[in-house]
């Protein structure tokens, strides 16, 4: 946040090309591939055997589990890594609690919403894939508006979470509207 109160996306400590590569890989590619695996394949298969609601819950749960980054959390407890990031053990502990909570709540919600979009759009993968991509871009933008370690470890918790949820709601509403327009009539 700039001195005048305006939000400035300055890409933090990241070079612009790294940020764009992040968008390409972590948002566009990851969003599309995860949706094809979890909604396009798993949820569809589960739905054929267990029905829509159980399939939605099961696929969303499996989707959430792979997002809990145990190895990353383990590495963050390494004093050498903490020194490199310039953070204390207490800050890391708080950050891990925040990240796990955020993953369980936000990623479960993401899985349920994209799964529902997939169902409502008559099993069209594009609406959930687009939502997932924009959700990830939102996360990257929020994380890069300032120095990333500030967001992860400092004052940025509340603001980061608030902006990300706001982004998700706005984009979700737009994709929801686009789904209704673009879905084939059944």
């Amino acid at each position, binding site marked *: 946040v700039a001195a005048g109160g305006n939000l400035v996306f300055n890409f933090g400590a990241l070079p612009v090309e790294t940020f764009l590569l992040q968008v390409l890989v972590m948002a566009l590619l990851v969003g599309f591939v995860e949706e094809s695996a979890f909604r396009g394949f798993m949820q569809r298969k589960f739905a054929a055997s267990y029905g829509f609601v159980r399939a939605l819950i099961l696929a969303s749960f499996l989707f959430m589990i792979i997002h809990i980054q145990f190895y*990353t959390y383990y590495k963050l407890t390494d004093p050498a890594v903490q020194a490199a990031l310039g953070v204390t053990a207490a800050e890391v502990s708080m950050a891990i609690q925040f990240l796990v909570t955020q993953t369980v709540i936000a990623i479960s919600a993401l899985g349920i919403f994209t799964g529902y979009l997939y169902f409502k759009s008559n099993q069209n993968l594009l609406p959930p894939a687009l939502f997932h991509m924009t959700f990830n871009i939102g996360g990257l933008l929020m994380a890069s508006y300032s120095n990333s370690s500030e967001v992860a470890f400092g004052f940025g918790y509340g603001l980061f979470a608030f902006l990300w949820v706001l982004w998700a709601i706005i984009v979700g509403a737009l994709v929801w509207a686009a789904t209704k327009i673009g879905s084939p009539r059944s």
Partner: protein
Amino acid sequence: VLQLYAVVFAIAWFSQLLTWEVAPSANVGLLITAVLYALIFLVVFMLLRQGSEGFSNLGLRISGLGTFILLAAVLGIRPIYLGNSTGGGGR
């Protein structure tokens, strides 16, 4: 489904491991992730073929309006990006 989940789970872990232990820079880490995710997509593709379902079952359908919105979004990103990179402290 279990086959695919096992692959996705293993790749998710492997990706973290490689990113932390092997990748010399953030960019290389991202490229490793890209390769691993391409591998996941290949597995999805192979499983669809194996089950004789065909790729069309994945459900990639887009309307004319959707194509227009996508193109507008892609073209719209460029000026937004330029606006940020030339002013406001962007690098």
